[in-house]
């Protein structure tokens, strides 16, 4: 196996995430797309680790850090969406134009 095949797959996954992030209106679906992008990053980190194989297993350690940060991000993100939904009875990101100039 070569490393490029994993990198190209991760790039495709990341591009799918970017598309979802830009095209979705519902805030929960935007967060789902962000998860997809973070997953692509994890795939990259683990693939690089399989090339370098350093003594600290840095790639895998960083993948674990990314997973942890993603879990924190989902927790805070969903509670923000919940707050917005309570105040405006809508979780659509394009209707949140209160601070738009």
């Amino acid at each position: 196996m070569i490393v490029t095949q994993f990198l190209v797959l991760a790039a495709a996954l990341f591009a799918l995430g970017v598309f979802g992030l830009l095209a979705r209106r519902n805030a929960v679906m935007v967060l789902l797309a962000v998860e997809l992008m973070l997953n692509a990053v994890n795939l990259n980190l683990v693939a690089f680790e399989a090339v370098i194989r350093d003594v600290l297993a840095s790639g895998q350690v960083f993948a674990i850090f990314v997973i942890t940060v993603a879990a924190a991000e989902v927790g805070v993100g969903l509670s923000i969406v919940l707050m917005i939904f309570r105040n405006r009875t809508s979780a659509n990101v394009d209707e949140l134009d209160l601070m738009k100039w």
Partner: protein
Amino acid sequence: MTLSEWISNPQNWAFLVLGGLTLGAGFVVVTSRNVVHAALALVGALAATAGLFLLLSAEFVAWVLVLVYIGSVVILFLFGIMITRAPIGREAAVDHVRRWPALIAAVALFGVLASVAWAAFETTQLVGVGEGTSTDLLGESLLGRYVLPFEAVSFLLLAALIGGITLARKDTSPAEEEATARDRGLAAR
């Protein structure tokens, strides 16, 4: 290395199957009109990614992904969908009207990333595939060299937990509480 050499390696068949599953499920995540289906497709994408991690001999990360993502993050999403009354069932307006620029941006990004990856690595072989990374090594690294980031990340998780609770709980001022109590009293009478 030619394409026939590449395809003759059974590991690459596994890669093609798992990669196809990941991309297919990811496609459903970003195109499904039903939020619950999108969240469940994310489970599929993550499970296939865990399979790819196993292929890259990163067993611990694969199971962490299954436990943390499929076990808790997706459950959290399903709760979020239920609470925010996101459009469960088919709904026409889950996407922006202008989704074609988004598609162009995504395709362009893929083109750039994939060509840069190919230009940088070409046919660099992976090493130590099938040997496995010992969890021993990972644990020593995590609590040795990387102990400071580890503690920072655990602090971040605690802060996010507290922040999530503070944001999501219903705040009522004492005056409001008094008002609701009075209303209830009136209703009872």
